[in-house]
């Protein structure tokens, strides 16, 4: 599948339901809080060879859950949660 940019992900992601993308490396969740916009390395891209699903569990609190492989990562990013919410309503 063609790699998905963060911008594309934000457009296609959904809130409350599952939104899938494939381009985020496993370290993405930790760097998201600092709004890291730097380009993904090939290693980061290759680290995800299946769907990556983001669920906004609590939009107000900015609580996000990333499902990838057989793992889940829960983190807080109010700005990203807000952008996903607004994207879903656009």
């Amino acid at each position, binding site marked *: 599948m063609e790699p998905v940019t963060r911008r594309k992900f934000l457009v296609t992601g959904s809130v409350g339901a*599952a939104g*899938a993308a494939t381009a985020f490396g496993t370290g993405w969740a930790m760097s998201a809080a600092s709004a890291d916009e730097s380009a993904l390395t090939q290693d980061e891209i290759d680290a995800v060879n*299946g*769907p*990556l*699903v983001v*669920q906004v569990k609590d939009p107000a609190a900015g609580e996000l859950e990333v*499902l*990838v*492989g*057989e*793992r*889940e990562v829960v983190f807080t990013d109010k700005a990203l949660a807000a952008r996903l919410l607004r994207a879903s309503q656009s």
Partner: protein
Amino acid sequence: MSSHREAPSILKDPLADNTDTYAFVTPNNTLTIITNYVPVQAPAGGPNFYEFGDDVTYQINIDNNGDGKADVTYQFRFENKITNPNTFLYNTGPIDSLTSANWNRRQTYSVTRITRRGTSELARKLACPPCNIGPRSTPNYAALADKAVYKLPGGERVFAGQRADGFFVDLGSVFDLGTLRPFQNLHLIPTAAADGRDSLAQANVHTIAIEIPIPRATQRDRIPRDPMAQDSTIGVWGAAYRQKSNIRDRDGKPSFAGPWMQVSRLGNPLFNEVIVPMSRKDEWNAVRPHQDSAFAKYVAQPELARLLPALYPGVFPNLQALTKDRADLLAILLTGIPAGLIPGFQNFTGTTQADVLRLNLAIPPTANPNRLGLLGGDLAGFPNGRRVADDVVTIELRAVAGATYPLVDPTFTPDAAVTAIEDGTFNNPGRQFLDKFPYLGLPYSGYDVP
């Protein structure tokens, strides 16, 4: 049924639906655990015959220290393969071996053992047998299925494939407002007496069976010899897991992401089916056994014990007067039976309330099993583990009706009707078990059973 389609969510997901779990001591210092899935299979299931889910993780879990958490886990994962992409058929000729070129849709599986010491894959690419189709497609089914019993490096033997469902129950009667044989004439809405009808008499199921050297299941890697020692008893349950997210792409192929979530489990038969209220059955399937204290109140005051006197006026007066918490059922189903209640026996695992099938490994198998297990004086039968032929419906009906309450209150006298309660399906002549691993009978053939 035992746990067939027993909860609102899992009834939509038969491949992950754990229908029965059996655990019993077998010869040569082994125990055998059997878990069944994919319930109520009509044998004539072509062209897409039944199979395990390649997107499901199946586990047999063993707790050997009484905390309700798995200490030894055997994990099974399946893969599907289509060998001929140009046919709609399951097979294009007789399947006379597990590598037959005529067999188009086949499954293999891996077995992984997980303990606190680590994880080890015991085997991979083990073949399941085909479903029992008929005399032309699977002409020598017994021999073919025998080939699908494998010996593993740790001494275990495994089998995964279709079998005749060993569970028997008169479902149509029980769920027609609690009709019990032979009391139909005493029901609020009486009918004439009739023989029991086994609702699963010709149904198949998919079975995962494993024979385990007992030291591979116990706390100190030993064979328990003292029935009264607490560490002689293990708790067993089967469970199925699906990944948290399932995405269906436009090409129709699903993809998955996230951790494995428990969607079905089973320790004691009928626990979720007739103890847990419908509003909490999905929750019960999702939580782990060590969290079962949240459901203890339904065991202490089982709804069925209130229904029996109401449905059969005057038949169960002593049960009707019994309003105390059912300490007998709490012990049998959630903690095990402590020492001092049954001479020479206990299967108490501690104070942690957990619905697991408790098996005292120091109780040897008997040459003369009684279908009523402990109620029939047979210490090797349910609820000390569960053998394939144990009449668990009758045992549990009698227990709920008060047969076991004298264990905790000798002044209580069960109603005379209790010993007459029968499910009425034990003597189904068509049901056959094997006297060897994997013990459940050969699956019914689709040619013979439409």
